[in-house]
C-alpha cells in the first residue's frame, strides 16, 4: 500500500468507528428516554402502553394507605383536575408527604393503576419537583381556558429555597 492509500484506510477506519459509536449511542438513547406525563394526560389515555414513564403532581391528602406487609403503599397523584392511583413497594423518600409534590416512574397496568418502580426523592420541604409543579400549573391553566401555561415552581423561595 502506498502511504496515501494507508492514510485513506486510516481515516476511513476512524470514520467507521465513529459512525458505529454514533449509531450505538443514538440507539441506546432512543430506547432509554423516559417521558413525563401529567395525571390529566394519563386520564386522557395519552400515555404509552407497556413502556415506563414518569408522572408527577400532588399526593392527595388522606390517600396514603399502607398495606400489611409494611412496604407496599397506595396513594393518589393528582394535578387537581385528574387523579391517578399509584402503588409502590419499597421505602419512600424522606420527604414524601401527603399534600406535597412527587414524581414517580413506572408503568400503567390494565386497570389504570400506576405501578411505580421508583418514587423520586426531594431534598427540601419547600421544593417542588419542576415536573410536579408543571403538572399542577398545566391543569390550572387548562381549567382557566388558557392554551399555554407558565411554569411556576410553587413554594420555591428563590435563593434560600432549595439546594
Amino acid at each position, binding site marked *: 500500500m502506498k502511504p496515501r492509500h494507508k492514510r485513506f484506510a486510516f481515516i476511513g477506519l476512524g470514520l467507521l468507528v465513529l459512525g458505529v459509536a454514533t449509531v450505538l449511542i443514538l440507539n441506546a438513547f432512543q430506547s*432509554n*428516554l423516559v417521558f413525563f406525563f401529567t395525571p390529566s394526560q394519563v386520564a386522557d389515555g395519552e400515555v404509552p402502553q407497556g413502556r415506563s414513564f414518569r408522572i408527577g403532581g400532588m399526593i392527595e391528602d388522606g390517600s396514603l394507605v399502607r398495606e400489611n406487609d*409494611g412496604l407496599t403503599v397506595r396513594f393518589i397523584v393528582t394535578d387537581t383536575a385528574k387523579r391517578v392511583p399509584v402503588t409502590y413497594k419499597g*421505602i419512600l423518600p424522606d420527604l414524601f408527604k401527603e399534600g406535597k409534590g412527587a414524581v414517580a416512574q413506572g408503568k400503567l397496568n390494565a386497570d389504570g393503576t400506576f405501578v411505580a418502580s421508583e418514587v423520586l426523592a426531594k431534598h427540601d420541604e419547600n421544593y417542588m419537583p419542576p415536573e410536579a409543579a408543571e403538572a399542577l400549573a398545566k391543569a390550572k391553566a387548562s381549567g382557566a381556558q388558557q392554551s399555554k401555561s407558565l411554569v411556576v415552581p410553587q413554594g420555591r423561595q428563590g435563593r434560600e429555597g432549595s*439546594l
Partner: protein
Amino acid sequence: MIPEIGHFALILALCVAVVQGILPIYGAAVGNSALMAVAKPAARGQFLLVLTAFCCLGYAFAEKDFSVLYVAATSNSPASLHYRLAAIWGAHEGSLLLWTFILTVWMFAVTLFSAHLPDATRSRILGVMGLVSVGFLLFMLTVSNPFERLIPAAPDGRDLNPLLQDPGMVIHPPMLYMGYVGFSVAFAFAIAALLGGNLDAAWARWSRPWTTVAWCFLTVGIAMGSGWAYYELGWGGWWFWDPVENASFMPWLAGTALVHSLAVTDKRGGFKVWTVLLAIMAFSLSLLGTFLVRSGVLTSVHAFATDPKRGLFILAFLAIVIGGSLALYAWRAPRVGLGGGFAMVSREGMLLANNVLLIAAMGSVLLGTLYPLFLDALDLGKISVGPPYFDSVFVPLMTPAIFLMGIGPLAQWKKASLPDLAKRLRWAFGVSVITALALPVVMGNWTPLLSLGLLLAIWIVTTAIVTLRERLAHVSGNTLLERLASVPRSYWGMLVAHCGIAVFIVGVTMVKGFETEKDVRMNVGETATIGDYTFRFDGAQDVVGPNYTAARGIFHVSRDGRETTVLYPEKRRYPVQNQVMTEAAIDPGLLRDLYVSLGEPLDDGAWSVRLYHKPFVDWIWGGCFIMALGGVLAVSDRRYRIAWRRQEPAVPASTRTARRKVA
C-alpha cells in the same frame, strides 16, 4: 463592617483582574517587557484580595453575623463551627467565591512555579487567567453578591441543608473546584500558545504537570462526591448518572484525554492541534458544569439558584469564553503545524484511538445531560434519560479503550508491529481470559458482564506487569531494587494510575454482580438474612443531637452465629428546616460493606428497613484514589523538579532522546 471589607476587596480584585487581563497580553503582543512585568504582581495582589474576601465571609459565618443574607440563609447558631465554615460553599454565592478564590490560588501557583517560562508566555498565561477571573468577579458583584446585607438582621439563620452537614461535604466541593479550575491553567497555556504561535514540545512539557495536578484533584473530588452520595443519601447507590454528576464527569473525560494527548505532544511533538482543542474543551466543560449546577436548571440537590439573571450571565460568559477561544483556535491553529507522522499501529495511534473513545464517551454523556434541557427549554415536553442509557453506552465504548490501555504502553512510538505485540502479550492475554472465565464460576454466579469486567481488570494488571518487566530489562542497575528505583516516577505514575482503573473496575463489577438488597418490615427482635449475614433488629430509641432529634435503630449483625458488628442507623429530624433525613449505618470492609438504613416507623415499634450487602464497593473509591496517586507520582517526576528549580528547559536534549529510546 467586616462584610463591607470583603465586598470592597472583591471590587478591588475586579480592578486588578481587568489590569491583569489586558496589560500583560498587550505587552506580550508588542514586546513591551514593562507591561508584561505587571502580570506577576497583579496575580499575587488579586490572590491576596480574594483571600481577604474569603476570610471576611468565613469571619461572618464564625461570628454568626445573620445580618448577612447569605449567612442567614445557610447557617444556624447551634450548628458547630466547622459546619458553619463549610457553609461558605454550601450554596450558590459562596461557592462562586470559592471558585474565584481557587482560581486565584492557581494563579498564585503559576507565579511561583513559572520561573523557567519565557516572559511573554508567562504574561499571556496570567493574562488569560485574569480575564477568566474578570468574568467570575463581575458575576459575583452584579448578580450574586455573598456579602449582601439582610436588614433587619435575622434573629437566627435558616441552617444549612442537613444533607450537606457532613464531613464529606466539607472537602468535596473544594477538591472538585481545584480540579475544575485547575483546567483553567491548561486552558490558559493553550490560549497563550495560540496567541504566541509557539506550540512546541516545550509548551507541552510545561503544561503537563499542571494538567495532571488538576486531573488528580478532579478525580478525588468526583470520588468524594460519589462516596458522599453513597453514605448520605441512604439509597446505597454510588453513581446515579444525575446531571450534576455528569457535569463533573464530562471535564474528567476530556481531562483524561488531554493528559494522554499532552504526553504525545511532549514526547513526539504530535497531536498539537488536537491537544489545544482538548485543553479548550476540558475548561469549557468545567464552565458548563458550573453553569449546569449553579444556574438552577437542573432538578437536583445542587441546583442552588433560580434567578434567571444569573443563568443569563453565566450563559453569556460561557458563550464568550467558548466562542472566543474556538474562534481564536480556528484562526491560529492552522499555523501550529501537525507534527510527525505515525503508523496506525503505534503508540500514537493507540493513544489517538483512546482519545477518540474518551471524547465519544464524553459526547454521549453530554447528549444525555443536555438533550432533556433543550427539549424543556423549547417547550417540547419533559423527558429524562436514565442510567440504562449511560450503562449501555459506556460498556461498549470503554471496553476497547481499556483493551488498548494495556497494549499502548508496550507499543513503540511511530510504528509498532502487531505480531510482535501479540507475542509479548500472549501470556497476559491467556491469564486474563482464563481467570476471567473461571473466577465467576468459582464464585457461583457467571454472567457475561461479570466476566467482561474481570477480564478488563486482570488485563490491565497483567499488561502492567509485562510492561514493567520489559522496562526493567532496559534500565541500568545491578540488583532488582536498583533497577526498580531507576524507573522514572512518571512511568510509575502511569502504571499506578492504570492499575487504579483496574481496582475501580473490580469494584464496579463485583458490586453489580453480587450485591444483595432487601427492603423489609422488621418487628423488634426479628431477623433478616442477606448474603451470609443475619441482621437482628433490637428496636429504635430516641436520641438528641446538637441541631436535630433522631430515632436510632439498633441492629446486631452476625455471621455463622458470631457477632460481626452492631449498626446504628438513624432517622433524623432537623427542626429549623423541618427536614427529615436518613443517616445510614455502614460497616465498611475491604471485601464487603454492610449497609442499613431506616425507612419509616410502622406499628408496635416495627420499622421498614433497607438492608444491603455490597461486596467490594470500597474498591470503587479506592481505585479513584489510586488513579490520583498515580497522577501525583507522575508530577513528582525528577524532570519537573529540575525544571522548577532551573531557568533552563528541563532536561538536556541528549538525555531526552536516550529516554525516548527506552520508552
